[in-house]
């Protein structure tokens, strides 16, 4: 679909005249994204949070595990912006350190899901025929699995290893990606440049990797952006159930769980991490919606 939009610039007549002329699809999309204030705000917020979290060891004067039992749990003040927990640990530092885990789980698991989903979908769609129907039947079967049940089972069965968490989450989120990619590939397969590539005698893997996948990047990027928050959600849910990240390591899910347990006495322990988590999801969802509108202007114009 993106190349269609590219071929018919006249179709987006609602765009202001200052629109760059004769630009590439990507510059076009970037321009449209720039005009979407919420998406831009989401992008900026997410970049800032990611930077703050990854630079946490150098930014924060407190270690996430530095306890101060005499100080104990106190509400937000100038010294501890988000307050401290019952062990006197600075909550802001813990949120930033927790964010490192949450955000990297988000990216790595999305990476796993991308790798599996894109290859699977591209092969299925490109090869077609019997192979395609068998491969898609398998996806249907996996769809019938209750996802959360499956992940919980995986985590319980193979121990609470953080690397396993990436794989487990990635392994259940690739299905939709595979379907999207397959649908796109089915239409691309009929295009002349693929015939040309086949006529040139290129090998199948080469055609898939060099000619098919680059042309479905738009929908892939959009869906990947929306996968990151849903993966972070899954991680946080697992951690909340006690199956994900294990203390003393923390993630936003762990912090929310700890906060929820003590909210009647120390409500800030719940509110701080909940704000971090929700605002980040918020920004990513707005960014994803904005990217969809920018890369695929034909869909969802409402």
């Amino acid at each position: 679909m993106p190349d269609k939009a590219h071929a018919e610039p006249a179709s987006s007549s609602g765009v202001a005249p200052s629109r760059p002329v004769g630009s590439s699809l990507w510059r076009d999309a970037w321009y449209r994204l720039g005009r979407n204030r919420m998406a831009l705000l989401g992008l900026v917020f997410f970049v800032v949070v990611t930077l703050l979290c990854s630079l946490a060891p150098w930014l924060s004067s407190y270690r996430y595990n530095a306890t101060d039992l005499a100080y104990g749990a106190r509400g937000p003040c100038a010294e501890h912006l988000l307050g401290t927990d019952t062990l006197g640990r600075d909550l802001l530092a813990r949120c930033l350190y927790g964010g490192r885990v949450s955000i990297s789980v988000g990216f790595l698991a999305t990476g796993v899901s991308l790798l599996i989903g894109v290859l699977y979908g591209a092969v299925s769609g490109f090869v077609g025929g019997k192979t395609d129907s068998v491969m898609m039947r398998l996806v249907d079967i996996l769809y019938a699995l209750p996802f959360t049940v499956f992940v919980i089972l995986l985590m319980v069965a193979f121990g609470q290893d953080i690397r396993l968490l990436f794989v487990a989450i990635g392994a259940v989120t690739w299905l939709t990606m595979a379907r999207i990619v397959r649908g796109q590939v089915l239409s691309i397969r009929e295009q002349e440049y693929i015939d040309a590539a086949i006529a040139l005698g290129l090998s199948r893997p080469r055609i898939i990797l060099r000619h098919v996948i680059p042309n479905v990047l738009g929908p892939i990027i959009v869906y990947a952006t929306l996968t990151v928050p849903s993966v972070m959600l899954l991680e946080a849910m697992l951690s909340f159930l006690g199956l994900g990240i294990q203390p003393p390591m923390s993630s936003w899910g762990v912090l929310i769980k700890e906060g929820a347990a003590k909210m009647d006495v120390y409500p800030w322990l719940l509110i701080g991490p909940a704000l971090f988590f929700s605002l980040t999801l918020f920004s990513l969802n707005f960014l994803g919606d904005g990217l969809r509108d920018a890369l695929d202007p034909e869909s969802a114009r409402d």
Partner: protein
Amino acid sequence: MPSMLKFVVIRVLQAVPVLLAIAVLTFCMVRLAPGDPFSDEKNMPEEIRANLLARYGLNDPLPKQFVRFMGDLFRGDLPSYKYVGRTVNELIAQAFPVSLELGLYALVVALAVGLPAGVIAALKRNSAWDYLPMSAAMTGICLPTFVMGPLLALVLAVWLGWLNPLGWESWSDRILPSLTLGLYYAAYVARLARGGMLEILSQDFIRTARAKGLPERTVVLKHALKGGLLPVVSFLGPAFAGMISGSFVVETIFFVPGLGRFFVNAAFNRDYTMVMGTVLFYATLIILLNLVVDVAYVLINPKARLTDA
């Protein structure tokens, strides 16, 4: 309608190998997991443990165990290892109605909040009536149940003191879990309803209806709603399945004695039979719900075709 009957029969037949595959997969996963149902009872003498394993036939070859599991499950006398003297079927029959009740309330909340919000947003597009509910919906999507639940409990139970923070005793105990679960789905319902209504409202037959002078109320209620809510209908199947099966978190937060908590505990305790039973139960439920939704979809949308895929 013979074509409809054929469709249902084919789908039910297709479900059999799918369920079998799920059973095998689940069986392999629980059996590959380290430990056994009795390994966490630290003081159990080795001899007794060996006797227990033998008593439940856990030393038999795996395929034999699998066949016995499935046979017992169908006859309804698969024993739970942790709840001694109870069968898996009994436990599911006891816990599932609780999850079902919670799911139904949550569904009511989701529809009662989500539908009006989405429809009004579509009708009053680009006004405060659009932006406010849609921002609220976005907020709802970004406040998953494990954030929303504790926050609601903090405000309604701890600060205002209106409700009990946990439990499932009186009718008022139903409010917090149902709200928590329902509001999350209400956000999706509102977005879908808005999108569907916007698409329908821009179509020719709506313009015709308006042109012939029908009052706006009739246009919306009699003509637009039916088509505009189709996206919501197809979402309801997965959503309701999610509400009754994925309510682990809500059941954990509020100590609701539903199937979700039983499953999580069973998985922790390596209660193989209970895990197998619940997973198969959930899978059957989801397949059935999807079938019901597909049929309902065709009934209200004459354009849709039944495919056996």
